């Protein structure tokens, strides 16, 4: 009886994206979907405490995940794991779209309601867990709404921003018959980590490989629903050396894909890792750069990471909640503050640059043979269809990526919810009238000459937050120097002095100083050619490394960026500050077996 009603209610609301199945709800044959729909219908109809309202919105998300991971060092396994789980996340709202229980952090902040659902097809067991989780979510929502109402009783709200946007219902079936090959993580970790064997110069190395085969079920009370398979694989190879003066240098190779076919073969990654280690060993003996202010050209990965770490976090709309605790309010205000919220329709880049986010793009450019972009999706985690969004046009900020949680000036979703927060899908940085390679270098040298500098700087690699986090766990006592002075950019891993005769000189280690989103307005030129990079996005990079902040910082997501080389007129680069750790007293074991003098390197 109740199930029949649920079906009817959903059919009325279904948008016409499905083909023949419009009178049948998505995944009708699927027990999980059935259980979700039936409990959703029952809860919307009957869940109510005397003296309080019932929910006006419920969304269920179920993450069905089979995952595996393996870490290895020097071709030998450190650990591995594999498992299966099915988790339900309940989003339940009481009140109305304009004012509800959300965007509020009370004295004892609410946690997202999660429950482990049974694997398999046991309808009764599924319903039971969904029922209990919904009950918890409802009680929490009623409590939050009353706390929030009380907190606002004696205050006048200056900005009336709705709590939840209204969106057209949408349905999507993204089931994918492909699955992830089991066992490849271990094979990959073992093969790639063997790249570092015999390299006594390395103070440490580790390779982490993991894969998730994930199916997401989504159903909400407004008629949106989807089933989407979103598989992912990651490989990270990390290595470190210590220079004679104690400086610790690190580098990494990463590969992200939606299947093992989307990342290079183990032997190819192993070769990349070997090259990385050789670069790292070269940097050990490279000269320092004490301080440099002048033109800097960011090429390839460095351009992509610079955009990822500085500009991209400003392109997402994060809502500042109403926070009861004053200390927490101060902290969250400083962390969530985004200067770009005040710069809509203002210039944030030079006129020749544009930025587009397009999760619907499958490949970079017209090349169908390249590995597919990793930020591609059809429907976001609110069930809102993905779309191409022009964020910056002719240097002017036009939009921010948003979920259904509005912020001042942004009322509707752009279909950008990935995990808890908005994140880029595939980001395209486009330059009008871009320079050829030689032209760009000429321009760089001209700018240097204007300042009477005998050389300029080119940066080809920048560290990442993900690698820093991984490395931090392996090297607890040495944190690589941060940029400091308002810059949250990770250290430069491949920076070169470039001389007028074209000669290049590698720099041992350096950091950017004072680079912020405002610096991007001073880009003077960009290349015509673009390169594609796969990155990890941290919505709040400054907080990503802090423990216990995962709820606030949002979920790190992988995405692809297509970016030209970017030439900045005026950037300060300097040597990282801080004390240097001593070299080990005991020589590396390989040195000892080879009978060589350890102090000689």
């Amino acid at each position, binding site marked *: 009886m*109740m*199930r029949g009603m649920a079906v009817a209610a959903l059919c009325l609301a279904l948008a016409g994206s499905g083909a023949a199945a419009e009178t049948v709800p998505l995944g009708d044959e699927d*027990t999980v979907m059935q259980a979700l729909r*039936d*409990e959703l219908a*029952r809860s919307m109809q*009957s*869940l109510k405490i005397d003296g309080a309202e019932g929910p006006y919105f419920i969304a269920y998300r179920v*993450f069905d*995940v*089979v995952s*595996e991971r393996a870490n*290895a*060092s*020097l*071709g*030998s*396994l*450190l*650990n*591995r*794991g*594999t*498992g*299966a*789980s*099915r*988790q339900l996340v309940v989003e339940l709202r009481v009140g109305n779209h304009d004012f509800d229980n959300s965007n509020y952090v009370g004295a004892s902040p609410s946690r997202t309601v*999660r429950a*482990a*659902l*049974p*694997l398999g*097809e*046991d*309808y*009764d*067991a*599924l*319903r*039971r*867990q969904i*029922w*209990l989780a919904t*009950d918890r979510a409802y*009680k929490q929502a009623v409590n939050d709404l009353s706390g929030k109402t009380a907190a606002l009783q004696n205050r006048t709200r200056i900005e009336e921003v709705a709590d939840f946007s209204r969106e057209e219902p949408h349905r999507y079936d993204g089931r994918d018959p492909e699955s992830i090959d089991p066992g490849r993580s271990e094979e990959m970790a073992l093969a790639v980590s063997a790249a570092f*064997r*015999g390299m006594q110069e390395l103070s*440490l190395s580790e390779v982490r490989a993991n894969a998730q085969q994930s199916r997401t079920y989504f159903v909400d009370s407004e008629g949106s629903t989807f089933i989407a398979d979103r598989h992912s694989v990651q490989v990270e190879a990390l290595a470190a050396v210590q220079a004679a003066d104690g400086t610790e240098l690190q580098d990494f190779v990463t590969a992200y894909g939606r299947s093992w076919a989307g990342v290079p073969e183990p032997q190819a990654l192993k070769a990349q890792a070997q090259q990385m280690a050789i670069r790292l060993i070269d940097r050990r003996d490279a000269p320092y750069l004490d301080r440099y202010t002048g033109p800097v050209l960011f090429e390839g990965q460095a351009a992509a990471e610079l955009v990822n770490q500085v500009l991209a976090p400003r392109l997402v709309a994060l809502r500042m909640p109403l926070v009861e605790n004053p200390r927490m309010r101060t902290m969250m205000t400083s962390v969530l503050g985004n200067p770009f919220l005040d710069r809509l329709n203002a210039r944030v880049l030079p006129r020749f640059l544009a930025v587009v986010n397009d999760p619907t793009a499958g490949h970079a450019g017209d090349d169908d043979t390249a590995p597919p972009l990793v930020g591609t999706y059809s429907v976001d985690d609110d069930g809102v269809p993905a779309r191409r969004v022009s964020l910056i046009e002719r240097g002017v900020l036009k939009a921010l990526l948003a979920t259904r949680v509005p912020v001042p000036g942004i009322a509707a979703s752009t279909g950008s919810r990935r995990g808890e927060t908005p994140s880029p899908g595939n980001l395209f940085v486009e330059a009008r009238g871009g320079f050829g390679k030689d032209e760009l270098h000429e321009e760089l040298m001209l700018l240097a000459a204007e300042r009477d500098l005998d050389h300029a700087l080119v940066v080809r690699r920048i560290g990442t937050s993900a690698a820093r986090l991984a490395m931090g*766990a392996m090297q*607890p*006592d040495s944190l690589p120097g941060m940029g400091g002075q308002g810059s949250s950019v990770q250290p430069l891993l491949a920076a070169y002095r470039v001389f007028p005769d074209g000669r290049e000189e590698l720099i041992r280690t350096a950091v950017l100083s004072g680079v912020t989103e405002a610096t991007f307005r001073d880009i003077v030129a960009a290349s015509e050619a673009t390169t594609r990079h796969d990155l990890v996005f941290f919505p709040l990079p400054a907080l990503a490394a802090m423990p216990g902040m995962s709820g606030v910082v949002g979920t790190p997501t992988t995405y692809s960026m297509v970016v030209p080389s970017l030439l900045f007129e005026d950037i300060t680069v300097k040597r990282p500050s801080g004390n240097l750790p*001593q070299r*080990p*007293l*005991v020589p*590396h*074991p*390989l040195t*000892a077996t080879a009978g060589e003098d350890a102090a000689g390197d």
Partner: protein
Amino acid sequence: MARGKRLFRALGAGAVGTAAAPSRSCERMRARRPAGRWRSLAALGVAWFALGASPDTLETMESELRRSLEVLAEQPDPVYFLSYEITEDKVVSVYGSFGAVGGWNESEQRGLDIDLRVGSPELDNTHELRRGGALPHQRVRMQAPVSDEEALRATLWRWTDHEYKQASERFTQVKTDVQVTVAAEDPTGDFSEHGPERATEEHVALEVDRAAWEAKVRKYTAPFRASKHILSANALVWADAETRWYVNSEGSAIRTANTFYRISISASTRADDGMVLPRTEQFFALSPGNLPPDEEVMAAVHRMVAELDALRTAPLVEPYTGPAILSGRASGVFFHEILGHRLEGHRQKSVREGQTFRRMVGQSVLPETFSVYFDPTAQHMAGTDLVGSYRFDNEGVKARRVPVIENGILTGFLMGRMPIEGFPKSNGHGRKNTGFRTVARQSNMFVDVSEGHSRDDLKAMLLEAVEREGKPWGLFFDRIQGGFTVTGRMLPNSFNVTPTVVYRIHPDGSEEMVRGADLIGTPLTTFSRIVAAGNEPAVFNGTCGAESGLVPVATVSPAILVAQIEVQKKAASQGRLPILPPPGVAAIGASR
């Protein structure tokens, strides 16, 4: 995977423990009747567990240790002791609730622990700073590969360097601290020497048939579906094959291999007043054949369902003092918390500890019919495996039987390698979980009573006491879920154990289930009120959390009669029962 794993950690080996110095909390489980067979485990062992590590692991560790020492022992602050311990855990678990499987995990990891000491046994880097505190107990997570010599050597090398830098830095602080503070009350050194031990055990593979385990999880949790008041009902079947490689600079080289198997079932309901009422049953074994047969587990499940149902409507207990019986199950937890933790050697030395028993050696602490000893070499008791058993502790010291109370008189403490006044040597109780620093911990505790009484006699004695003192009733603590005790000086030196099944015993002998009572008290007063014991020892296997992490422990103890105990009201949640009735699953589900 990660999500499900986290959920069940709460029940599993990584259970939430209190590692804060002054209080420890222990999860406890019930006794088990003599073991049965687990027939369904046949030939379907998981293949990857059969892979052993390189046989040269110990040799590689020893040679790398010697190589490092050649340099580090010659430094101005020399390294005088170095040990490496690698603990490999291969774990399989299956979990589920309400008759369905919720997930599974298979994992293997190899944790590395290094004990590197700078200075001398009299004074080294581990010395407690009187201004600034003890060494942090939890350490950096180190991992080591064991299948390859180059990889293992490189890993040991770089972590040894890390540990040396930490140790020499702290040793400088220690020397200053000793100079600027008053002389220590306990003048003994920081470390005791021990002769070399050498032993090698063969690897043990897990016997896991995941499909059979899934069937068990479904079977064990299905009966809870029938009750509409049961709000959670989970089962976990878990196994761990643990291999430890230990070498030290005294010439010890030890490889041990063990397996642990566990079935854990937990369920909870809520009374109308909001009180959450939990029940847990756990079964431990050192080999799969010693796990109980399904009939035994199912009997426990049905008992849980009935007890939860009865508890929901049981009357609330008001604060009370008076006579009580603790069942064998309950007294095990009681002795573990309030006696066992206070016999851990390092607590007699730390200036932050209450040192309850430090000056009581040779004095009476329990009735003279009571003797207590710890015996990690005992593996079974009445057909039940004891999980607190081991052959070598985490400091390379051979396990042995240690009497601590003889005929009521305190005779000794549980010792790791940190000496205390009057007890200069380890007795094989230096224990820890991977990633923690070793301290003295309990193993298998045996409470031996020379004059035991039958259950009926104990009950008669209780009723006499009730009448004598004019009390309206006595209490019977049948099951205790866990507890904690404070051994430090900054807070009252008390204990709190949390019973789940308690009965009022009325003067006419009738028994009535009650809820909401926590058993509280202070140790010395409570010991002095133990008046009699039962004659049927019960076994408790559990996991104990303290400074050095979670370690498996067991107690073997009879029921006891205490002349006066105190109960306080349990903290209760104000939450209410679910608003909607359970989904009409019976009707809808029938068609599927």
